[in-house]
């Protein structure tokens, strides 16, 4: 692990100032990704600014009926929040499907949005990796790529976005709030927060260096109570997704009714939390039955491009989505 200097910030602007002024500085929140990657020599910052003491750990009701989640709310606290469980069950379920109780007690909402890929070649700090060392090549393209992405890939990088919470947030139309130097704030729809890799896989989000996530806002949409998250993986718990689906359905007259609107996002198969407007269009206006769900799944995976070892993910993701939609359609809300 490279040596770094460490200090704790008490206020957001102090933290932002410290990081923005040093190109090799990083914010440190829960540490569940960053400390791991420091130890692997994948991350080599000169300065860590510990932001855990910043006053950003509240879950608040917004005037219009939405919810504001502070960036330092721990995953476990968010998952168990009563309002979240009732109004956005997909989010609670996604959080509880991720990692372990210990890690959920540590990980934060802001940090979870910045989670790095589990690509073995990215993590070993030796293999060619365009994400870790731009221009060095991609060992995963020719290597073992069973866990890699089938959507959003490029000839530079096929690393999967590993998270669950951001997939649910993508389906919920969440909005990320940030703060930059000089107090400038901005809001970024979650769907625009992560970027597809293209030619620049090292860039994973639209955040600028030194820009701090302060909160995530969830909109007030009553039918999001009919939402669920399904995660399929190699073992029953404490494992990353091979495929996951975050879905919400607005059914005319409730259970058994036609689909007025739908939200679909996929995890474990794409280079970023993958909102599928194609699947949503296929569902809108349809009867909520297996044929419609299957058509949506075909639409969601139409652009999928398999690698040598991950072709199974395409059918797995389709079935995951069909089952998640079936579950949502049957929910008593």
């Amino acid at each position, binding site marked *: *692990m*490279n*040596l*770094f*200097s*460490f200090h*704790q910030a008490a206020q957001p602007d102090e933290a932002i100032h410290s990081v923005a002024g*040093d*190109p*090799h500085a990083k914010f*440190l929140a829960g*540490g*569940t990704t960053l*400390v*791991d990657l*420091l*130890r*692997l020599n994948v991350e080599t910052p*000169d*300065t*860590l600014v*510990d932001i*855990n003491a910043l006053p950003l750990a509240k879950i608040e009701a917004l005037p219009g009926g939405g919810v504001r989640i502070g960036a330092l709310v721990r995953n*476990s606290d968010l998952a168990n929040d009563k309002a979240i469980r009732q109004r956005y069950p997909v989010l609670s379920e996604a959080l509880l499907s991720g*990692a*372990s*109780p*210990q*890690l959920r*007690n*540590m990980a934060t909402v802001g940090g979870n949005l910045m989670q790095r890929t589990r690509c073995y070649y990215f993590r070993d700090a030796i293999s060619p990796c365009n994400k870790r060392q731009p221009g060095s090549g991609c060992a995963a393209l020719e290597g073992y790529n069973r866990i890699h992405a089938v959507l959003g890939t490029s000839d530079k990088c096929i690393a999967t976005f590993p998270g669950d919470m951001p997939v649910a947030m993508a389906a919920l139309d969440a909005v990320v709030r940030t703060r930059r130097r000089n107090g400038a704030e901005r809001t970024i729809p979650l769907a625009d927060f992560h970027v597809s890799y293209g030619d620049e896989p090292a860039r994973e989000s639209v955040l600028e260096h030194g820009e701090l996530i302060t909160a995530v806002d969830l909109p007030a949409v009553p039918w999001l109570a009919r939402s669920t998250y399904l995660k399929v993986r190699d073992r*029953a*718990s*404490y494992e990353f997704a091979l495929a996951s689906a975050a879905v919400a359905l607005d059914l005319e007259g409730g259970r058994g009714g036609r689909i007025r609107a739908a939200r679909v996002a996929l995890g474990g198969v794409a280079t970023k939390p993958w909102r599928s407007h194609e699947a949503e269009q296929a569902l809108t206006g349809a009867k909520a039955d297996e044929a419609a769900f299957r058509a949506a799944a075909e639409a969601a995976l139409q652009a999928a491009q398999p690698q040598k070892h991950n072709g199974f993910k395409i059918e797995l993701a389709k079935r995951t989505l069909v089952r998640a939609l079936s579950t949502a359609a049957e929910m008593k809300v």
Partner: protein
Amino acid sequence: MNRDDIRDPEEPDAAEDQTGWSRRVFLGYSLTALPAVRFAAATARAAGKVAAHGKTAGPAVARSTATSTMPVTLNVTLNVNGQEQHLQLDPRASLLDTLREEIGLTGTKKGCDHGQCGACTVLIDDRRVLSCLTLAAMASGRRVTTVEGLAHGDQLHPVQAAFVKHDAFQCGFCTPGQIVSAVGLLHEGCPDDPAAIRECMSGNLCRCGAYPNIVAAVREARGGKSA
């Protein structure tokens, strides 16, 4: 508290050779010497990076300055099992290594050191977390409880007693993490059925496969059925 006060009770004095060095003390000093070696390597690497990027004057110079003036140690105060510990630490020190190598509390185990096994589980402010992925400096001013802090004198914590009663271990390496994790589970609450307990304990791996007895012990400790 110094290292000699925390000798393994089962380690006979005869294990100290004529130079007065016990196995554990020797290992302890060997391990604490390592960061100094790593530091030298890291500094050399950083210097190499600066040289490699020499033409980009701005950041490279800043990095060079930062490297040469970087404080090598931090003053960190930890509250561990009710005792204040004033420590001077390398900023890279994990809470796990600090507990084991600086404070001498070797009950907390290092399994994977990457957040994948749960052997290093401790409580911070009564919540279970992984000490391998927590920098010691992040825990400054917070209340850390390790497996050594659970019993009251000779009276075992109910979770410890239940693990003994149900023979909930084989080699024992994961056991401190399992026990501390189960104490955290009791604070959090978990439904009393085996499937739920398994999920609530999923962050602790046991290579011996003592899971059925671990589930039984946790159920007993939380006041439910144990069979």
